[in-house]
């Protein structure tokens, strides 16, 4: 008989390296037509980082995502970056790009100020224009300013910057310190059916509520959560590298190392919890790794809720769950105290 259960997985996860310096550098070049090119040493690893980084540069310059081209991943061309690791790209590389864009924008403001007859501090960049704060009708297009700055004044609008998250070294005896600049939080709740005659677990749905500070691109956050959950389902129920007595892997192929497919995926509901971190670019933190953290915990708690057995060694394969159910049935009934 199928028995239904529900379980919670709640987590916290840091953004960036543990204490160690993990800087990013970036360059933002505003072209003569008001579009921009970003140079970053990070690499797109499929998560959509370059899109998010482009959005950060665009927001800082008051232009659209499509106006920004991001050049990445070439040590001859791009500045150093600690890389696509530790859920740090949006937060650390994003901050570097934000600061580089601000530096380029300052050059544009210097050029625009005499054009509009105000001080640079009275200007803002918005809707592809540089305009006087509170007087949006007094404006010039960012392209006009960039052209004038580069071709007439001889000051191309190029900004470079670096950023490294502030941390405090941990005491080696007690571990006390500030190992990370910031953390994100998340909860996933899973609903499962467990067949108590076969031990098979089916994950029906997962409700995932994730904090990432400001969601620079909510669609990409949702994509990360869905991908993270698929990894979590594999960790919870299926994936395991097995070794023989001589330390050789016996299942080094996808025929017998079983991963979840689309058929194993539950219904997923993603909620992005509104947050704002003043230390991140436009309040953003990160989301990459944390999405894979609470899934297995939620599923295993749901199995416990469904059939009353606690699987303490992952993965909870059907064989393991069935053996635990049988052991529980064999166990003498405890008289409630």
């Amino acid at each position, binding site marked *: 008989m199928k028995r239904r259960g529900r379980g919670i997985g*709640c987590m916290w996860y840091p953004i960036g390296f543990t204490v160690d310096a993990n800087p990013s550098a970036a360059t933002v070049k505003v072209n003569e037509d008001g579009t921009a090119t970003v140079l970053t040493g990070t690499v797109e690893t499929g998560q959509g980082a370059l899109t998010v980084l482009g959005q950060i540069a665009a927001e800082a310059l008051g232009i659209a*995502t499509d106006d920004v081209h991001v050049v990445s991943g070439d040590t001859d061309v791009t500045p150093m970056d600690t*890389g696509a690791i530790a859920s740090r790209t949006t937060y650390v590389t994003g901050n570097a790009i934000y600061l580089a864009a601000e530096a380029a924008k300052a050059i544009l403001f210097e050029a625009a100020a005499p054009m509009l007859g105000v001080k640079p501090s009275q200007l803002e960049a918005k809707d592809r224009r540089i305009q006087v704060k509170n007087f949006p009708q007094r404006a010039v297009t960012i392209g006009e300013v960039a052209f004038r700055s580069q071709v007439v004044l001889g000051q191309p609008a190029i900004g470079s910057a670096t950023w490294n998250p502030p941390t405090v070294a941990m005491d080696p005896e007690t571990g006390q310190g500030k190992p990370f600049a910031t953390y994100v939080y998340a*909860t996933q709740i899973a609903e499962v059916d467990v067949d108590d005659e076969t031990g098979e677990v089916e994950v029906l749905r997962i409700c995932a509520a994730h904090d990432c500070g400001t969601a620079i691109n909510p669609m990409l956050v949702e994509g990360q959560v869905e991908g993270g959950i698929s990894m979590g389902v594999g960790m919870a129920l299926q994936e395991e590298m097995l070794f023989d007595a001589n330390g050789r892997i016996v299942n080094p*192929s996808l025929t017998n190392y079983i991963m979840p497919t689309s058929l194993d995926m539950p219904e997923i509901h993603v*909620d992005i919890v509104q947050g704002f971190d003043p230390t991140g670019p436009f309040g953003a933190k990160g989301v990459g790794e944390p999405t894979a953290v609470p899934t297995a915990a939620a599923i295993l708690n749901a199995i416990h809720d469904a059939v009353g057995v606690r699987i303490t060694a992952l993965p909870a394969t059907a064989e393991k769950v069935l053996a635990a159910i049988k052991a529980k049935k064999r166990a003498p009934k405890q008289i409630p105290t």
Partner: protein
Amino acid sequence: MDDKTEVLEREQLDIEILRDVNLRLPAVAPREAFPAVPLTVDARLQTRAVGQRATRPDCRMHGLGQTKYIDDIKLPGMLYARIKRAGISSARIKRIDTSAAEAMPGVMAVVIGKEIPVNSFGPTFQDQPVLAADRVFHAGDGVAAVAAVTEQIANEALERIVVEYEPLPAVFDPVEAMRDDAPKVHAPNSNIYATKVVRKGDVEKGFAESDHIFEGRFSTQMIEHVSLEPHAAIADWDATGRLTIYATIGRITLARADMARTLKLPMSRIRLIGTTVGGNFGGKNEISQEPALALLSKKTGRPVKGVFTRSEEFTSSTTRHPIIMDYKSGVTKEGRIVARQIRLVLDGGAYCSWSATTLGKACILSPGPYKIDNVLTEAFVVYTNKTMTGAMRGFGAPQVCFAYESHMDDIAKGLGKDQLEIRLLNAFDEGSSSPTGQVLHSVVVKETLNKAAARFGWESQS
């Protein structure tokens, strides 16, 4: 011919191109072919940019199947490399004979560990050889690399490389490896290669003040990242002595430093191009075969490509740490956690790789997102003669989360409390102090609990 006719003719031509199945679909289709008008404004064209559901600039290439991964790149004169794997977990290499392989027609070069200028790398400890030179530490270690005109010839050449091994004692279980009498993986060093402690308050005092004590042991398995694209790289050592590496790697700055170290080259003579990565998840955070490919390219004067097989992805790349986790918690009868003691043993595999980082994160995060005044976490990472464990999405956090959340439900059940309520009772608030004494900001853990519960339709059963 006036402008109008020219425009018309070009448009007709475009449509013709679309009908010709032998031609590639144009990157931008002519408007006439797909007259549909989008119903929503393109998020990529919006100002403000932040908060927009902007599509990715690379999605069209992915959708059309035109993205170029390493396996799609073919340079003129390029050779194909394969690596001979040890297949034995712990041994001394007595002799390597590559002469039969080198004599094969189509085999252009062979490289062994002794030829690597500095045959060690690693982000924390440089304990990993590019190719095992005199000692094999796990079965997936490479012992020789071959470059040939085709992959098939390279594969055949591997069969003709003769390696004589003297088997050495091995250890596979991390708990066994911690014992003093266990075989040392990297003798004379201890198998326990990194430890971490987080101590806050006084756990013994906390346990004494608690109404109930709960204990549990949890363990997790070794997991592979299984990126769709395996580890792949092309090395091109050109006639000027400059080395270009195309690699599917997430950290090109570190990778260039590792290449400079292993090859004893100035960084200015190395160009590392990070190509589109077909899945990383932490598995492509460091170099693997690249120095061997570079030397094969140097020997032959031709570009050399190496692509791991799916099997090598399991045997010879990093994996997720199995962790044995012991939890002990003291709680009040209301369900408030007073003290928590944790011991973590991480199976570190044959090399450190990113184990020190994983150890740190697992140790710091292991008490969970809860306000606990008395915490003691001790964490150890241990060498075993198995494939190396390293960075993988979550760096130890998914393992400890499984443990602390299972433990939390056991506590809830033991006290007859609702699982959601006990978490809300203990969860961090803005300004809470973490186990390392850090004052936390922008804390929304309770908001995520309430949001997920509302979406799920969670009803209390206590």
